[in-house]
């Protein structure tokens, strides 16, 4: 038994940490966030492409690295640490998995190599894990899609979109398809690209994922969000610790005050077990463990809560400066807010565990 990252994974994390540390600087993030237009961070995507990230989950036969969910989670954690304002969940996770598991041979040959090379980016329009909000959904009829998806991600700079329909199936839609209208949505986290889609009888190519693969895709995305939360939450803790060491009040570093010490200790105590839970959940999806789904949902819910707690306490440790743009702490705070809510908040996610976990418990309508 070896409950740890492999040497390769550790190396991957360290090297990517270096790359992202130099590319996704606070200045760069701020510039991205301040732009009002639809955003695609070409330079950061370029950096990710040089590192091979677009091909992480693309099979080697199609020119990718053919790595595991756990490897992708390691990457997602680093992206969260550096609030990297580049697409990831759509083109690097959802699209390769959905196409790899459900695409025809022709589609795979056509798209996967371009995905792996980073030249093709595919967004994701799929709100079902967060629940159908106020009746908004996409309906498939005779291979064509109609409806709305209020929370489509990684659309900026994408050529295609993976769209989930109300019946749980996935489809490929061309970004330029007739009947598709895209309205960028500014969210609190400006490092993520979100858009609202309206589809009016839009042509689509079906992806034939099995029901269990649809769930695996769902769980893989929850794990990526959990990893992002761990990354940004850990960075918030580190910032708080650094600040508490450096900042002096009353003639001593504020980190020598028990109240500040305990804020930091609580953050660490909450985040640290989330790391092991995340590894277990990601590995469970790779190894096909029977509790993989439960673990993935637990990881998302646990880290949504833990990172939110860290985001609040880190701001408290920083005091006034924490709510300003001065140190940019708020970019991490907002990334945590976004990742915690996207694809279902902690409460809804736990309710999904309850339904999975105990077959004797009927799914209740009355839980969000």
């Amino acid at each position: 038994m070896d409950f740890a990252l492999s040497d390769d994974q550790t190396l991957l994390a360290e090297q990517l940490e270096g790359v992202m540390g130099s590319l996704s600087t606070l200045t760069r993030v701020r510039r991205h966030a301040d732009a009002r237009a639809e955003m695609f961070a070409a330079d950061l995507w370029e950096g990710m492409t040089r590192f091979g990230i677009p091909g992480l989950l693309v099979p080697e036969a199609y020119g990718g690295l053919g790595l595991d969910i756990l490897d992708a989670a390691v990457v997602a954690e680093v992206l969260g640490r550096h609030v990297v304002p580049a697409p990831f969940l759509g083109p690097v996770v959802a699209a390769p998995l959905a196409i790899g598991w459900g695409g025809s041979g022709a589609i795979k040959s056509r798209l996967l190599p371009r995905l792996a090379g980073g030249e093709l980016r595919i967004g994701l329009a799929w709100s079902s894990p967060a629940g159908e909000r106020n009746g908004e959904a996409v309906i498939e009829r005779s291979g064509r899609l109609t409806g709305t998806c209020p929370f489509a991600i990684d659309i900026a700079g994408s050529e295609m979109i993976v769209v989930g329909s109300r019946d749980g199936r996935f489809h490929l839609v061309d970004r330029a398809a007739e009947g598709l209208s895209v309205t960028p949505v500014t969210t609190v986290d400006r490092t993520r690209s979100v858009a609202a889609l309206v589809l009016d009888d839009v042509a689509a190519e079906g992806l034939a994922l099995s029901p269990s693969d649809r769930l695996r895709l769902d769980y893989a995305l929850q794990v990526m969000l959990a990893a992002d939360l761990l990354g940004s939450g850990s960075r918030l803790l580190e910032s708080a610790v650094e600040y508490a060491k450096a900042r002096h009040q009353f003639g001593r570093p504020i980190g020598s005050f028990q109240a500040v010490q305990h804020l930091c200790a609580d953050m660490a105590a909450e985040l640290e077990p989330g790391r092991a839970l995340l590894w277990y959940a990601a590995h469970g999806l790779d190894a096909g463990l029977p509790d993989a789904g439960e673990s993935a949902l637990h990881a998302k819910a646990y880290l949504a809560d833990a990172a939110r707690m860290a985001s609040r306490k880190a701001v408290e440790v920083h005091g006034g400066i924490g709510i300003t743009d001065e140190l940019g702490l708020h970019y991490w705070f907002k990334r945590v807010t976004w990742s915690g809510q996207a694809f279902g908040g902690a409460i809804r996610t736990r309710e999904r565990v309850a339904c999975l976990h105990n077959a004797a418990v009927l799914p209740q309508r009355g839980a969000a």
Partner: protein
Amino acid sequence: MDLSYTPEQEQFRAEVRQFLVEHKADIPAHFGVNRPSDAARAWQRLLIAQGYAARNVPVAYGGAGQPHDIMRAQIIADEFAVARAPLGLVNQGISMLVPTLLELGTEAQKRDWIAPTLRGDVVWCQGYSEPGAGSDLASLTTRAVEDGDDFVINGQKIWTTTAHGADMMFALIRTEPDAPNKYLGISYLIFSMKSPGIEVRPLRTMTGAAEFNEVFLTDVRVPKSQIVGERGQGWKVSNSTLKHERGMLGDPNAALARMRNLLALMTAQSTDGVAIMDMPVFRDRAMRLQGRALAMKCHAMRLLTAADKGEDLPLARMIVKLQATELNHEIATLAVDVLGEAGLAYDDEAHMRANEIWQKRYMFDLGMIIGGGTAQIQRNIIAERGLGLPRELKPARPTAA
């Protein structure tokens, strides 16, 4: 317990209502961003004349000259809230500087500044905090040296609201570097924001707005006559000001109003066809917060009664800031959770839609937990002054004089 009002008080309430009906057209549509609009100043003058604003300030200084009457003040506040009419100008000049001048200013200072401040003709900003002096405010280093009849000020202030629109600043400045401890040696100075050497830079916060500024002071000259209170006694002077500030925090009516909005949101929003209000986990959190809001409302009524009787309830008073700011933040947090993915939408203030306000509050209210004495400092105050626990080795702040 008697929640009714005397016939005289009810008569007064009727008068206030009548006034609000008659002057509905005078209520200013816009109050102005950095400076009060003309309409706002006209409204303010009307309220002073009517005895509803600047109630206890003597007529000689431009106030309404009414006797202290907390119940009448509360009736005015309640009726204005019901009518959604603004109760005159709310700014730091009126809430902090005016009471300080009344208590410690010279006759000339009172005559010069109180009336125009009350009327909104002179706008003030506060210069207390510095980048290196937050919780430990008394360690401030902005200093003034004597030069003839003037002080010459150098240093930097932070967290200055409305600095852009302000005419004047009231500030804490270190004038006696050799004082025996850091609390002595600070003076309370007032000076024009048009003075040469003042630079104002907006400080952008996480909400995206610039609610605060930094103010850089380089060789700013201030006549020595513009000191309020004794030289070197500015710490004491400012504590009397802070005392007045505390009353501004934690309006329980506002928390209850927010709860109503939140419950409406939960009724309107649905997931998978079920209204959020029908989801027990969210509903339980909402009811818990409603109970807390109601408790804070009752708590405020208790404090009001005590104040009316001239009694002080120190512990009850000291917990208000901690509990009220936390409650507001929790209400916003639940709203963010209720809105889910939809609640992530966020724009800057100009384009903000109805639901986005919750995401803004989630962040802004966290700032309120920190501003004006962090939650940690509040707990120290409650423990040491409210409960009489022994002082921490290094106290957070000396006991107010």
